[in-house]
């Protein structure tokens, strides 16, 4: 093998993508939740959030929310600069109360889904989605 000094010290393309430390939930998140619930207590119950544990691509992360009875589901990416993702509304004749979409995550953070149930109460599910540099699998 021939390797010249020029080869040896040439600096190549960036070998790592930028990824940061886990993002904290912003104050904006609390405001958005308060606006949705009107300040009511949020419990656990009829809401399922499906999200990957580690995102394959932080720019397009598939998520799904579902519920048997929800009339409305709010989805927030709590660590994004703008946490709002979507609000799904289901009418009384909805055959299924589920929605899936892809979202962009600025970094490792909790994704939260809050459902408003027909009796006016609120339930929530949350999932930590990690956005990582990766690169060292066994």
């Amino acid at each position, binding site marked *: *093998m021939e390797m010249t000094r020029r080869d040896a010290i040439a600096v190549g393309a960036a*070998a790592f993508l930028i990824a940061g430390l*886990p993002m904290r939930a912003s104050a904006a998140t609390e405001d958005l939740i308060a606006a949705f619930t009107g300040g009511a207590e949020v419990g656990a119950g009829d809401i399922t959030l499906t999200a990957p544990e580690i995102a*394959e691509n932080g720019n397009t992360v598939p998520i799904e929310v579902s519920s048997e009875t929800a009339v409305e589901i709010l989805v927030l990416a709590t660590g994004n600069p703008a946490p709002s993702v979507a609000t799904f509304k289901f009418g009384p004749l909805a055959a299924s109360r589920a929605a899936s979409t892809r979202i962009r995550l600025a970094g490792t953070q909790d994704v939260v889904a809050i459902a408003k149930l027909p009796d006016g109460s609120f339930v929530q599910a949350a999932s930590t989605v*990690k956005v*990582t540099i990766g690169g*060292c699998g066994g």
Partner: protein
Amino acid sequence: MISRRDFLQTSMAAAALYGSSGFGNWGRLAAQQALTQDKLLEFDTFGNVSLIHITDIHAQLKPIYFREPSVNIGVGGNKGAVPHITGADFRKLYGINDGSPSAYALTHDDFSALAQGYGRVGGLDRVATVINSIRADRPDALLLDGGDTWHGSYTCHHTQGQDMVNVMNALKPDAMTFHWEFTLGSERVQEIVEGLPFAALGQNIFDSEWDEPAELFPPYKFYETGGVKVAVIGQAFPYMPIANPGWMFPEYSFGIRDENMQAMVNEVRAAGAELVVLLSHNGFDVDKQMAGKVTGIDVILSGHTHDALPEPVLVGETIIVASGSNGKFVSRVDLDVQNGRMMGFRHKLIPIFSDVITPDADVAKVIDAQRAPYVDQLSEVIGRTADDQTLYRRGNFNGTWDDLICDALISEREADIALSPGVRWGPSILPGQDITREDIWNVTSMSYGEAYRTEMTGEFLHVVLEDVADNLFNPDPYYQQGGDMVRVGGLGYRIDVTKPQGDRITEMTLLKTGEKIDPSKTYQIAGWASVNEGTEGPPIWDVVEAHIAKQGVISLDPNNSVEVVGA
């Protein structure tokens, strides 16, 4: 009437007894008399179903040396639990005598001295002999390959995996699942899989565009064996596009997907499966967690984290079997299935002592045919280890092979700091042994081996180390990727494995000056195996070969640059 739980625990105790008498006693006997093939293969055939598990071969066709890790830290609920037990603690747990064949096969102490006596391990021609012997007892035994098969050697790289495909076909597996195979690129993987004479399974292999199951990889397959309807479900490595370059297989998405796993178990049970086997490349801790979340799996054949365990681990009513790596072990699991329920099992982890087990002549011929075109390149001697120098990789932090690779990167690429991936494959080299080109490729071969050189600020370097550390030490196994810590050269640091991401790594020091790493200062970093598309640089095997050739005899300074706390 005895409950199923009682049955399982009773048989677990029986199996443990068998395991320790079969395994430990076998070790003691061997200390007194020569090891024999009959003793290695001795097994009192049990029940009505036999499973044969081999995994993470990493293209090791020929016998090798392979040192097990001395450091394997468990975090969270897995602290101090198998497989996070090494050395003397491991031997004590399983009743293995110091210096016995089992001690040599399963633990790291006195590795190079014991290797002189017990010789090499593995070799797929020896594995063939073991498989044939099990099939002689139980002709319809199922042979299941856990993946990481078509990666890891000179010949595998140059034939794009064809050497392994040809040899594995000669062993006649019934199914396999995947990880490093995908780093051949999706086109090549599709080409091979379309021609495979056995099932290519993965319930978590999805089409990335539509997020639907990928047609080429069915989630499961049914087998009739011993009058029992067996469903084998596949689970590919969940984090392939993250831990490996996703741009090489952009059509595919993976993930753990345990809701879909539960759906598949329910589906096969509804279709009449009497025994549900998961052929998994999750890694051991992920499999343990999955066994606690998904109900209805009888046996998990666990791969990816390269753990070799002489007894299955029981989680609820699921047994988890871990069969090592690099062709060093084969597991045999006999099961008694009655009326659609697993009533008991018997298990043996069979170490492939290559001097004791006679090679199967037919498979040996197939192996030689794959290697024949490359024999001159493979056997060229590049250097030699000093009389007190072992080269190995396995362990949570730098092994000596990694130290050598990092030295090569720093000197050949004029860098301040070197980074080398924390992979778990790569055989060992004994003191005073020639290092051939094949040996170098065995620890470096991959389809994205460019040795890059780049600049990083101290702050960014810290982010990189924290990120990788969290992939290993996150207390929730579902957030772990199953590799080891990124290896470093020219850099020292302290790591507290109990802290959260961002707080684990402190006291980063540039070794050549002894100065603390300055977050705002820029450093020259050399590394390899970047997952980013367009990474430039000479192949790592050329860098390492050039360095070894210049050194001649390899003698490394002891590496004390990483201080671990909280383990």
